[in-house]
Structure formats: structure tokens, C-alpha cells
């Protein structure tokens, strides 16, 4: 609980209008896309880095937790005020400060919505590729803090591959600048990369310098339908082995296709057992050639249909298939565990076979789709929490899938982060030495554990966040 004096001081920093304490307002800042919910004591909307710094200095002096929040679209509870405290919303800091067409860099504030930024750079013939499916509402600050990825990651990489420099307010209120706008730079540790994916636990990002690319001249969208799941899975590595890196290689398995067809009737043949949505971009001539090469490469792999969009509306039709996945899944069961495992691309056929075995063993519906081009598969375990025992079975199934993933040389989360939701599984992937090192880093940044406490590391949940041996 915050005392009245603290609230007064917060008002002194951000102004009455930008501090919320009414219960109705608080319930609106206690959730994210995980559907978990915690009630904060107050919500602040600072206007600039100076106000952010003042808030963190106060938090350090008076020892209350601060939880950074962008759009609250996270899938792992990273922004949630577990245990109470102050939610710090970044969305008033939402200016695109400059787009430099000479150096192909842009500087933005963290509250800018991803799509807005993409539209602005594209007006100048430039390109910011990271495209999480939430781009219409997620913030760039949240994207950096989670290191968000998207379908275009196959060719272009994820958010961190475009972050050149940051302005960060440290938990003690100091403001630092990391990296910069030069393409090279080896002075000291790479704190920029450390901040990427740090889930708001090390500092609050108040400015971001992004690298940009020239906007590709054209793109081609292809729907490839396969008669077997193995065919589609093998197609992924076959294309890459053929020395073609598509922009996008999205995958949908048979249960996913069934869900979508049942609800939306998009005309996918009934012989389809899996499909890929493939996009290539670049020079007009080059992509023409590449799409023919892809056809040749995957034809032997149980290919049922190869549909190339002739124009934008046809491409839109193909993407509609992918976008219809999420709304149609709930026809299977009302609740879902949404995992985002990653394996090396060549291991995709193997991991899909193992997931199928897990599904049979535990008898819970599992629907797989996602960014197969980079080995990132969204494994959706569809359950009904009302059915007794189902949640338990799902938990066990997840554990088994994670084990298989790690055995295949993969990782538990490609882009959604750990937050609160995946803490129970962290130790499966990370040894004690590495975890201890990470906690030491956290402590170096945030000795009083006031910034986003209780996230990533399971122990941090407890009253004494760090074991005595580390103090």
C-alpha cells in the first residue's frame, strides 16, 4: 500500500490528471493478454524521461515497486502489478522524434504504436521489418522489452536486430544512453542488447534508436498446401537449403486448418494436412524467379496446391487464412495455453511428431501454427478449465513438450518472454549458475528490487527476493 504522502509526491511529479487511484481505473491496468489480473495501488502516466526518473528515485527512496507498461498486450504477464505498487504507463511518450533518411535511422519514444512507426517510415520509402501480430496496438517500448518477433523474422530478424541505441532510466533514477547511431561500436559491454528482452526488469526505456532498411520494391504471397504434415515441415528446410530466404514462412497444421475452415470456409481442399504461407520480397524480377524456384523445390514434398497471389486482394485472401486462426481456435475449447517454442529449423518435422505423441498420450487438443521459417511454433493447448483434471493434464503435456524442445536444441520462448506465466519452467532450460549470474545482473541494476519485481525469476516472488549467498 502507498501512503498518502507518497501519492501526493507522485502527483507533484506527473500532475493530478496523470495519476489514477480510483478502483475503477486500477482494474483497467491490472491485466494483459494472459488474462491474469492484479490490482495496482496507483497508475501514473509520465510525460517524459525526467518524470520517469523522478518516479523511480521516489520509488527507491520509499521502497515501492514500479511496473512498466506499454499497451498491456503481453502474453506472459510482464507488465502485471503482482503484489501491488505503481503501474507506469509509457503511452504519453509517443512521438517519433526523427527519421534520418541519410543514415537510415530513426529515433522514437517508447509509447509509439508499432504500426504507426512502420507507416511513417514507409511513407519515406524506408522499412522497419519487425511485425508482431499485435503491431496495430503494441508499443515499440514493449516490443524492445520483450524482443518481439513476427512473420518477417525469417529474413530480417527480430526487434533486437534493429535496435542501435537506447535511452534508459535506471531503477535509481539515473538516465543513461546505450549504443548510438553508428553501425559499429565496441566501447564497453553491449548494454543495448542486454536491455532487449529484459522485460522491464532492468530499466525503463525512454528513447529508442532504430536501424531502418530501404523498402523492398515488391513482394509475392504464396499459399502452399500439403497432403502431409511432414511434407510441409520438410518444405521449410528444403527452401532454406535451396539458398532462398523467404520473408515469411508461416505454418498451419491440420487441426488449425480444420478450425479455420469450419468457421470461415476459405476454400482449402479437404485433402490438406498442413499449409505454408510463403512470402518473398525484393526486386520484381528476383521474386518472380524465387517463387518459381520455391515451387520446383517443394513440388516433390506431397504438394497439393501452390497458389500465387496475382494482386493485393488475392494476397489479402491468403493472409485471411492466417488471421482467422486465432478467432476460430475457441471453437475447440474455451481456454488455451499459448506456448511459443523454437527449435532449429531442421528439427521441425521431429518436434511436430513429438507434439503429436504428447497429444495422444494426454488426450488434450493441441493446435500448432506459427513462424516455422525461424523454427518458432505456437503450440496451443486448448482446454476447458471447467472440466476437472484438464488443466493438470495440460500442465504435464506442456512440460513434456518443453523437454522435447530442449532435447532438440531449442528454447522455451521465442518472443513472448517469461514474465509470470513461464517461471515454473525456467529452470528446465537454464542452469543454476546462469540463473545466479542473471540475478546478480538484476541486483546490480536494481539493488532494492523496485523495478518490475517478481518477474522472470521464480525466487523473486518471495519477500526476500535474492538468496543470501548472492548478497
Amino acid at each position, binding site marked *: 500500500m502507498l501512503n498518502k504522502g507518497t501519492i501526493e509526491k507522485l502527483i507533484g511529479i506527473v500532475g493530478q490528471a496523470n495519476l489514477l487511484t480510483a478502483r475503477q481505473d486500477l482494474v483497467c491496468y491490472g491485466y494483459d493478454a494472459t488474462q491474469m489480473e492484479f490490482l495496482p495501488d496507483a497508475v501514473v502516466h509520465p510525460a517524459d524521461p525526467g518524470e520517469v526518473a523522478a518516479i523511480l528515485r521516489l520509488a527507491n527512496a520509499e521502497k515501492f515497486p514500479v511496473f512498466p507498461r506499454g499497451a498491456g498486450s503481453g502474453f506472459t504477464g510482464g507488465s502485471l502489478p503482482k503484489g501491488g505498487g505503481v503501474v507506469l504507463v509509457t503511452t504519453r511518450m509517443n512521438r517519433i522524434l526523427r527519421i534520418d533518411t541519410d543514415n537510415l535511422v530513426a529515433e522514437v519514444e517508447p509509447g509509439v504504436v508499432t504500426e504507426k512507426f512502420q507507416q511513417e517510415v514507409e511513407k519515406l520509402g524506408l522499412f522497419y521489418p519487425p511485425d508482431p501480430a*499485435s503491431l496495430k496496438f503494441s508499443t515499440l517500448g514493449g516490443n524492445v522489452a520483450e524482443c518481439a518477433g513476427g512473420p518477417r523474422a525469417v529474413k530480417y530478424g527480430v526487434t533486437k536486430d534493429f535496435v542501435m541505441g537506447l535511452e534508459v532510466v535506471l531503477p535509481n533514477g539515473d538516465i543513461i544512453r546505450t549504443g548510438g547511431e553508428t553501425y559499429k561500436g565496441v566501447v564497453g559491454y553491449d548494454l543495448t542488447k542486454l536491455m532487449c528482452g529484459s522485460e522491464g526488469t532492468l530499466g525503463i526505456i525512454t528513447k529508442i534508436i532504430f536501424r531502418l532498411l530501404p523498402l523492398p520494391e515488391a513482394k509475392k504471397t504464396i499459399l502452399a498446401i500439403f497432403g502431409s504434415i511432414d511434407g510441409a515441415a520438410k518444405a521449410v528446410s528444403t527452401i532454406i537449403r535451396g539458398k532462398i530466404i523467404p520473408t515469411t514462412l508461416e505454418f498451419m497444421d491440420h487441426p488449425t486448418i480444420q478450425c479455420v475452415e469450419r468457421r470461415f470456409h476459405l476454400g482449402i481442399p479437404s485433402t490438406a494436412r498442413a499449409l505454408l504461407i510463403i512470402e518473398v520480397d525484393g526486386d520484381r524480377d528476383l521474386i518472380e524467379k524465387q517463387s518459381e524456384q520455391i515451387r520446383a523445390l517443394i513440388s516433390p514434398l506431397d504438394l497439393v496446391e501452390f497458389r500465387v497471389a496475382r494482386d493485393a486482394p488475392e494476397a489479402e485472401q491468403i493472409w485471411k487464412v492466417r488471421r482467422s486462426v486465432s478467432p476460430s481456435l475457441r471453437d475447440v475449447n474455451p481456454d488455451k495455453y499459448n506456448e511459443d517454442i523454437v527449435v532449429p529449423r531442421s528439427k521441425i518435422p521431429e518436434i511436430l511428431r513429438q507434439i503429436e505423441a504428447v497429444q495422444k498420450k494426454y488426450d488434450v487438443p493441441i493446435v500448432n501454427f506459427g513462424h516455422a521459417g525461424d523454427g518458432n511454433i505456437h503450440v496451443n493447448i486448448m482446454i476447458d478449465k471447467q472440466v476437472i483434471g484438464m488443466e493438470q493434464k495440460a500442465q504435464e503435456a506442456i512440460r513434456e513438450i518443453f523437454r522435447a524442445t530442449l532435447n532438440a536444441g531449442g528454447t522455451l520462448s521465442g518472443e513472448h518472454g517469461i514474465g509470470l506465466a513461464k517461471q515454473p519452467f525456467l529452470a528446465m532450460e537454464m542452469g543454476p549458475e546462469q540463473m545466479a549470474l542473471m540475478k546478480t545482473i538484476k541486483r546490480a541494476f536494481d539493488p532494492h528490487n523496485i523495478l518490475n519485481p517478481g518477474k522472470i525469476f521464480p525466487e523473486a516472488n518471495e519477500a526476500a527476493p535474492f538468496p543470501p549467498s548472492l548478497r
Partner: protein
Amino acid sequence: MDSLRRLEKEMKKCVRCGACRAYCPAFLETGREPAVARGKIAVAQHLLHQDLPWDGLTREIMANCLLCGNCTMNCPNEVATDEIVIGAREALAEKRGLPFLARAVSTVLRFPRGMRLGAAIAYLLSPLVFRKIPATSGLRLRFPVPFLGNNRHIPPLASKPFLSSCPEVLPGKPGAPSVVFFVGCMNNFVYPQIGEALLALLQGMGCTIFIPKGQQCCGLPALSGGDLETSRRLAEKNLAALGSFSADFVVSACASCGGALHKFYPAVLGKAFPELQGQAEHIAGKTLDASTLLTRLGWQPRGSGSGEPLAVTYHDPCHLRARGVTKDPRDLLKHAPGVKLVEMEGADRCCGLGGTFNVHHYETSMGINRGKTAAILRTGAQAVVSGCPGCMMQLSDGLKQQGSAMRVMHTLEVLANE
């Protein structure tokens, strides 16, 4: 509370993904989570579980919704937030009584002859009512008669309401389709020329037209204020009046009235009052917007459009967009030889009116409107065209406040000249 309990399942469909943040006009203006659909749903769920007060702030949060349906249209789970907000407003009315404005609206709507505007205005502007509003209130600047504007830019009232100047039946050619016309308050009192344009267009195609005298206000203002009882009474009369002529179609030239008949009657009133459901669905199934009706009937311009074409830009009313009516009006305008259609940026963005929203949240409303007005002016068009008289009023207001004399027209007015 029953109204909220009925919607509990609907609320559970919201998974808090935040997609509504990209589409809610009230959120985009204020940037605050209680304004957006998932925030309102969270508040409604907490109300249902009795852990939030039914106070002024709760009322303000629920009032901060335009009922535009934009969130639902773009929601992966198609959560009907508008129904949830109406349910919450009804529960609030039950707990705390109707808010002042809703009470005024309901009183007016309950006058014996529901569409007598003179009486309505006289009542609302009487010193008795007006004294209750502080001089600093936005209400003073923009005093609403159901859906009617402010005292700065109230559109001039028609000298004679549309309904009292036309017969109940206009016979057409044998074999041609028959149509029942639902007029609505704005078209009746403020823009009778829209109704006249529709009659001319339909008569040109030989249609038989019925204009039932017994029709009332559609009831949406009362419904959106949480006064289900008044809207039920009005709906009952309208359903009887519209159903008394057996016609192929029911047509509306007001996006909001059409939305009421097509969506809110079956989805909200029908659910709350099962005895209305059958007739509500029957009428909803026949209800078309005028632009869709003209498209289906294959409207053809008469002239060939000599001279310089009229450059127009089209604004999508939320209550047409929510029903998927975006292509028909544009196709009709493109088909008119004397018209050149110039698209504005964000044609699908709300104008900010939202019925009584713009009184409860005047600043937000006009903030939304400023963006709209700027986009309209950037097109350089000679006229802005829309399919909703409510939008037309709000658009004129915004344009006048920016010192522009651009014309504001209904799609039907443009077509009737062709």
C-alpha cells in the same frame, strides 16, 4: 443487475488482447484504458462481482462509449461491447436512477406524440431544466435535444416535419418492389430533404412506398442512456407500425435508426423482452440501408453529367460500417456521372457524435471531430457526403468551427440530383 448477468458469457469472450486499442475512437482520443472496450468489460465484470462502487465515475466510464461498434468489428472474438455497455448503463439506471440527460431524453420521447419536436425543445430549454446545468458546463454550449445539436450551430429546423407533409401510401408500378420507409427523428425534423430524395429515387424505379404514420423515434437515444423501458415502448410501436404493411423491404436513410432496427432491436431489446423477439427479427431481416436498397434495385442515374463534376468525399457512419455497408454508397456515388469521389484519410473513423456521448464527454467528442474535420478539409472536396443525419450534423458543426463553408450532404441528396 439482470442486464449484466445476462451478458456474463459475452464478457468472458474478451481475452484482454488489446486489439480494441487500435480502433476505439474514445481511447484513441484519451489514451486511457478505461475508455477502451477491454477496460469497460473489466469494469463491468467487477461490477457484476460487486467489488466496484456504482458511483459517478462508473457512470462516466460507461458514458464514454460512442456505441460505434468499431471494437466488435475488429475483435478476434467479436465481443459485443456495445451490448455490454448498454447493459451496464441499464444496471446503473436501476441502481442510481437515470442520469439527468437520459431522463430528459426519455421524458421527451415519452410525450404522447413521440415525434413532436416543438414540445421537446420547449421542454428541454425551459428555464426549469436549464437552470440545473451550471453555466460552465459543456451542456450550455451544446445542448442536446435527442440527437440534435448545440446552440451555436443547430441546423435550421424544417418548417414542416417530413411525416406531416407526405401521405401514408405512395402507390408505384404493379410488379415493382414495395418498401416501408422508417423516417427517424433527424430526417423528420431537421433534414426532410433526405426523405424527399429517397421518395424521388424510389418512385423513379416504380416502387410502392409506405410511410406508416404510427412510427416513433427509433429509441436508440433512450436505449443508449440505459432506459430500456422507454426504448421498449417505442420499439413496440415501431414494430407494429412497420409490420402493418406487408412490403418487400424496410428502408432507413439514417445509419443509427437503421442500426437500431437491424441490430439493437433483436440483439438487445429482443433478448431483454422475449415477447418482442419474433417481430424484431422479422423486421430486422427486411431492414436495409437506403444505399443497399438502391444498389439491389439497380439504380441508374438519369442525366449524363455535363460540366464540371462535384468533388465529394464520403464519411462512413459507424452504424453503417458496423453492418458492413461501406461499398454500396461509394459504388453509387462513383456511378453518378456528375460526381467525383475523393477518398479522405480515415474515412472509417468516427465523427465523434455518439448520440448523447458528445454531451457527457464533450472534449473527447470534439477532439475526435477535429481529426475528422482536418481529414475532410485535406481532400479539397466541395462537399462531404454521409449516410447518417447524425454524422451530418456533427460534421457541419466541426466544419463551421474551423470556419469552413463546405457543404454537408446525404448520399441520397447527391444521387437525387443525378
